[in-house]
């Protein structure tokens, strides 16, 4: 039986001793100050709180921290200075993907998960890859174009 939860956030060891039902997003935002993780719906439907857990895209608003013992979590803050992270962020800037910006950290994480497993996505692959991320500005076309740009410009970094 576990009494404390040990996990890694952006490669930093984190020990949590509180209520295991605390939502992962609250630990990330409130305890660790990682406010790039946004809360939209709070029901796992909008993708604004998307993070990568053990290599897979998940929504941190519906995961209890008690379920991440031993896991490696990456947030937008953990990938933004990496080669892959910079590639996506630069492509989003160049492609004009960002309007109000609220959905963008989640979109970048979804793009990161997509390109890491599929370096040469078709437009349909990209649309499916961000199908769990809602942009209320409805700027999907420019986001899709920007992810395509990141795939092209990144080239071998995604292979």
């Amino acid at each position: 039986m576990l009494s404390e939860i040990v996990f890694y956030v952006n490669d930093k060891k984190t020990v949590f001793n509180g209520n295991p039902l605390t939502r992962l997003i609250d630990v990330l935002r409130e305890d660790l100050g990682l406010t790039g993780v946004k809360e939209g719906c709070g029901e796992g439907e909008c993708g604004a709180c998307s993070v990568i857990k053990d290599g897979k895209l998940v929504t941190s608003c519906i995961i209890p921290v008690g379920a991440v013992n031993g896991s490696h979590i990456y947030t937008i803050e953990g990938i933004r200075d990496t080669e892959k992270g910079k590639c996506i962020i630069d492509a989003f800037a160049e492609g004009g993907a960002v309007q109000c910006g609220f959905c963008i950290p989640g979109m970048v994480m979804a793009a990161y998960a997509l390109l890491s497993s599929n370096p040469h996505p078709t437009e349909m692959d990209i649309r499916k890859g961000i199908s769990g991320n809602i942009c209320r500005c409805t700027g999907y076309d420019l986001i899709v174009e920007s992810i395509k740009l990141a795939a092209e410009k990144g080239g071998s970094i995604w292979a």
Partner: protein
Amino acid sequence: MGMTYIPSTLSEALRLRAEKGAKPLAGGTDLMVQSKRGIALAPQFPFDVMIITAIDELKGIRALDDGSVEIGALVTPSEIAASDIVPWHVRQAAAGMGAIALRNTATIGGNIGNASPKGDLPQPLILLDAEVVLASVKGERRMLLDDFILGSKKTALGDDEIIRSVIIPPHDFTYSFYRKIGMRRANAISKLSLSAAAVVKDGEILDFRASSGASGPRVIRSKDAESIIKGHMVEEIPELMDSFLEAWNNAISPHAMPEYRRNTTRRMLGYFLSSIHEGASPGIISEEV
């Protein structure tokens, strides 16, 4: 407010279940939403909960010696969709659940245990006569999933039991059909879903089955309706069609389905049967263009 436990082995979990009645929380995609309290507030449950995500005995998909496939309760829709041994109908349903992040988090055990009439996995599993394996400190028992789900949000799970795995017996269908209809392509709750399958040999329909999801408190299977087609010849399909569709319509819960759902179900089943009658090549019968 209940206590929360994090067992690391199945035997610990079974003891907690027996002694405290703690309810299992796996992916959390249903429970965390149902008990949501808002920003920076942890969900609360009026009962004890155990977070079972870490229990290795409940993970993995394996082929059994008799050709069946066993799927551990903690297996996610992403893992099911990517499997090369899980039957096609179940992979299709898994691939159409929610969006990527949800498919990486939800579990087959949760989807069954939650017993929502709109749950995506029970429908194809019941088509395939899948069984559920229930574990307790006293041992294990197996029962047909169709018998396990008693109604909307109701199952035959004992107070000391947890869902351990699902076992799908082998099938070799000549024709298969699956369709989920929701309001959107992604992140949509089923409005309606349908699976169908047939075994045809030398013009004879040796097996015919169908199951409807989101069509009432339980998944609809009707052996009576199936028997109208089963055992007959492919060339007889046109004369059997109306009585089969009528029997299926009667099997559907009288209050659960508005007319458009009935019409859509009738049309899909009619399409599947007509395709067989017209000599479609064996394999997947697809309506998608």
